[in-house]
């Protein structure tokens, strides 16, 4: 489908440059993180990397715990790919892309143990806080994975609990109690095109990827989640190289948080 574009991009990559003149492992600029953009949400953030623009809102609800974890709260991540953000997106129930996006963000936060679920317990076996994270791309100019997970983390950092009394939540009054984040898992998607590795693909590069690996890592470089995508397999050496790039680049992104 995109043979000409692909061969053009590969020839650029072999010359150590890309369609927009960036280096292979360079993020677009500016990287912009804005907290508290949605008044009605308990926490929110808007993150822009280059032209890509994502708003994430966090809602806190009181619910019942799962029977196997009576003293733990939970998180629910949802993503809706709005047709407004990319002409290829369609209205309707979430498709495979939206589900994957939500799950990659979910996995990064859940498996890094960034949120202590035990602290979300109100009453054991009866009531817990549910953290609902909604991802809403405003403009998809490529690399929704990294931008969304950065925005989700920024929104969680911004989250304050609403007042809660006698089983009722008063969303109008916010308390000063913050949602504690123990870790900051940052997702970096490393792309393989031909035999080259790049980060932060733009919309054209996303059309011609061979494979991608989303690497979520913490401050000390510990891995917490991986997600492989794309049609082509990866060798062990490929994965090693991609992990190195992913962890290295996460340090850079973390500074913007």
């Amino acid at each position, binding site marked *: *489908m*995109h*043979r*000409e*574009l692909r*061969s*053009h991009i590969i*020839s*650029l990559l072999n*010359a150590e*440059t890309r*369609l*927009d*003149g960036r280096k292979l492992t360079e993020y677009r600029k500016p990287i912009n993180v804005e907290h508290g953009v949605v008044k009605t949400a308990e926490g929110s953030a808007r993150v822009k990397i280059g032209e890509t623009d994502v708003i994430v809102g966090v809602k806190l609800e009181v619910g019942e715990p799962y029977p196997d974890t009576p003293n733990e709260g939970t998180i629910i991540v949802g993503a809706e790919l709005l047709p407004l953000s990319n002409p290829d997106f369609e209205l309707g129930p979430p498709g495979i892309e939206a589900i994957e996006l939500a799950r990659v963000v979910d996995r990064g936060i859940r498996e890094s143990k960034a949120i202590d679920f035990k602290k979300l317990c109100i009453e054991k076996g009866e009531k817990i806080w549910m953290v609902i994270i909604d991802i809403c791309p405003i403009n998809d100019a490529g690399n929704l994975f990294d931008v969304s997970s950065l925005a989700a983390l920024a929104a969680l950092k911004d989250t304050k609990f609403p007042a809660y009394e006698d089983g009722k939540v008063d969303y109008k009054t916010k308390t000063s109690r913050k949602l504690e984040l123990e870790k900051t898992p940052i997702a970096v998607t490393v792309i393989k095109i031909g035999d080259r590795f790049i980060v932060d693909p733009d919309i*054209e590069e996303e059309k011609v990827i061979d494979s991608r690996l989303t690497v979520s890592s913490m401050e000390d470089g510990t891995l917490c989640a991986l997600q492989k995508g794309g049609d082509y397999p990866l060798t062990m050496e490929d994965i090693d190289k991609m992990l190195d790039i992913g962890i290295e680049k996460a340090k850079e992104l973390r500074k913007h948080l």
Partner: protein
Amino acid sequence: MSKIIVKDKEISVPGETLAIGMDTLPGAGTYREGERIVANRLGLVMIDGRTIKLIPLSGRYIPKTGDTIICKVIDVGFNGWRLDTNSAYSAMMSLKDATSEFIARGANLTQYYDLGDYIVCKIVNVTSQKLIDVSMKGPGLRKLKGGRVIEVDPNKVPRIIGKQGSMVIMIKDATKCSITVGQNGLIWIDGEPMNELLAIQTIRKIEKESHLSGLTDKIKEFLEKKK
């Protein structure tokens, strides 16, 4: 006697009455409603004798017979190709207009033009229902190999080309890139990576500053500084 309400080179908005009376004639971008001539779109008013026309300032490409455009193949059928013209209407290219080569009956048409390929073609006919027929027969009409395609505002295409192609020739000389500009706002560029970027930067600059006078000198200066 009819009355022209607007002045020459004034900006008009859709629905604005431009003139009253049957003596004046509606040109491109305007229509007649009873006695009045009304603007169809946002544009600059041009009064040319008895006709009033608009030069559009915004909006998508509207196909016109004789335009050379860059299209993307979106479907391969039994007797031709369907093309995306970067407008609201898709174009059809039949087998006989596609190539001067002999195409055997039942041949695999994707070996000529495949899905996703970009081609330069000419509009030979646009019906009142906006069905577009294009042809590949003519000088410079071909399939685009290598390079990249960028999108610009179709209303700015005349400025990017310049008088008798002066602007685009200047960019070609300065960047050593091959450039083909389609009337529909798609531009194909092929060259050395850094030169390609410079060409794109220049085109974006023209797009942004197209309304300013002395644009050619400004672009010349810009290109010399970047070299």
